[in-house]
């Protein structure tokens, strides 16, 4: 069986939906953050597949940008979640309720 562009796009769409579902349903900040990374990687997969399909390297260059930015984002984000955990001893979104009108 040949693996065509559609297969890659379907896998990337499934990954993206799984990530989105996780962000909406999960209550732990770390798990939510992992799901967000899953969504970014779904986009990476789609970009690489389409770059190959179009015969144009721009998409693969974009993937490098995304990986770099995601690394920076993870560094900042995990530090933030750890700082919150130290303060509240919790990483659950239900406990983030100190900001109210």
């Amino acid at each position, binding site marked *: 069986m040949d693996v065509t562009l559609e297969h890659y796009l379907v896998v990337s769409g499934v990954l*993206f939906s799984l990530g989105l579902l996780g*962000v909406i349903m999960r209550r732990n900040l770390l798990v939510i953050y992992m799901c967000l990374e899953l*969504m970014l990687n779904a986009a990476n997969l789609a*970009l690489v597949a389409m770059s190959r399909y179009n015969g144009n390297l721009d998409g693969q260059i*974009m993937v490098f940008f*995304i990986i770099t*930015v995601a690394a920076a984002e993870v560094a900042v984000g995990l530090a933030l979640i750890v700082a919150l955990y130290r303060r509240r001893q919790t990483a659950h979104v239900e406990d983030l309720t100190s900001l109210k009108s």
Partner: protein
Amino acid sequence: MNYSSMMLEVAVVVLGLGLLLADLWTPIEKKRNLGYGAAIALALVLIWSFQWKPVEDSLQSMYVLDGLALFFKRLFLVSAIVVLIMSVEFAARMEAGISEFYALILFALAGMMFSASANDFSLLFVSVELITVTFYVLTSFQRNRLASLEAGVKYLIFGALSSAFMVYGIALVFGTAGKMNFAGIAAMAPQLAGNKIFLLGILLILVGLGFKIAAFPVQMWAPDVYQGSPTPATAFLAVGSKAAGFVLLLRVLFTAVPEVAAHWTTLLIVISIITVLYGNLCALPQRNLKRLLGYSSIANAGYLLMGVAALNDSGKSAILYYLGGYVFTLLAAFTVICVVMREVEGEDISALAGLNQRSPLLAAALSMSMVSLAGLPPLAGFFGKFLLLKAVTEQGPVNSAYYWLAAVLVIGAVISLYYYLGVVRAIYWSKNPPKATSICVSWPVQIALYGCIIGMLYLGLFPNRVVESANRAVAALERPGPMTAVAHASGESR
């Protein structure tokens, strides 16, 4: 690519790195004064930016330096200068690392300046992320305050989610168009206008940009983050990040996919109506000044989206003018909040009682900015709303939905009178003001406040020059580039 056209951004980045280095040799008690140095250096960069002329023939490159880009770069520089002065005032409330705070403001500024010039989806993504990731740190900078941490985490989750949407949208657009460049996509757009995957990609990108401007379906973060963040970070978020979102929105909608923008008029109209009503109605019961401004910023995003929905040149130049006035107005308001709320924890409106006796300048600046936000003459906000109304009603004969849009603009402005004037009433006519201890206002803050007041008055009383320069800047968006023309010709011959 010609790197000499990026010298303004390079100067800002070098300044930020230099600030981090200078921090190593500065004694602790002098560190907060580094902010004044950075503000002065940015003022020099601002003066330098007036030496630059728009470059016309760079449409195919990733980075353009047209009139629109220069207009927004100056806007960002002005706001960063005031925000730096504000942060010096705020320094006592951060336990450590004030130089990093200044440097992060400069890096966010560099991201905004790059975004003003973005002509390519990869530069768009990288500059948006540069802004967003620096703001994750800026919003949560007061690590010992739970509210600040919470604001940071909320901004982090929403920001990462919206950038995931945007990246997936870029992937879909790249897959269908085969290009990242806005001009290249514009050349392909007539064939792609019916392609569902391409349209889904554009929609996802708009969701990502809508997060930056706090437009309706992705606005939930704004009130919480505005309330919890350190005041200078809130001010920069409200002014710079929103303006960056709008310049990117203008470029994507009107340079890359003008056909799609014309198809989606109804969507844009509905979103701006909901955004205006949501922001204004939710702001009514608020007692926390920063949270109130958070909802008001949602409402203002709705007004600005009306200029986008109008799809004509007067709408776009109204957006530029409105943002110009908005910058001065909000910076004045946040500077006053930053100084007055030094002793109070909650930022409640009642803390403003008797402010006119404690410091007439602060009272005048805050009430002027509230009056300007409410859209009363003779200040900048009035003329901005007037221009938007004019642009929207101009389109009325084409589509009667625009009359509804104009009606919502007026209704929103009337609703907003209640809560903006409530703040003014708290300043001047409070029932039992506490005993008056005068607030000492340092001279850089005075300069910043007088600058903002002059800006509001100048834009309100003599709008012609700014409107003209906004018109010139907007003309750059519609210019058919050499590449577009060639691609059209080859498409027809086939």
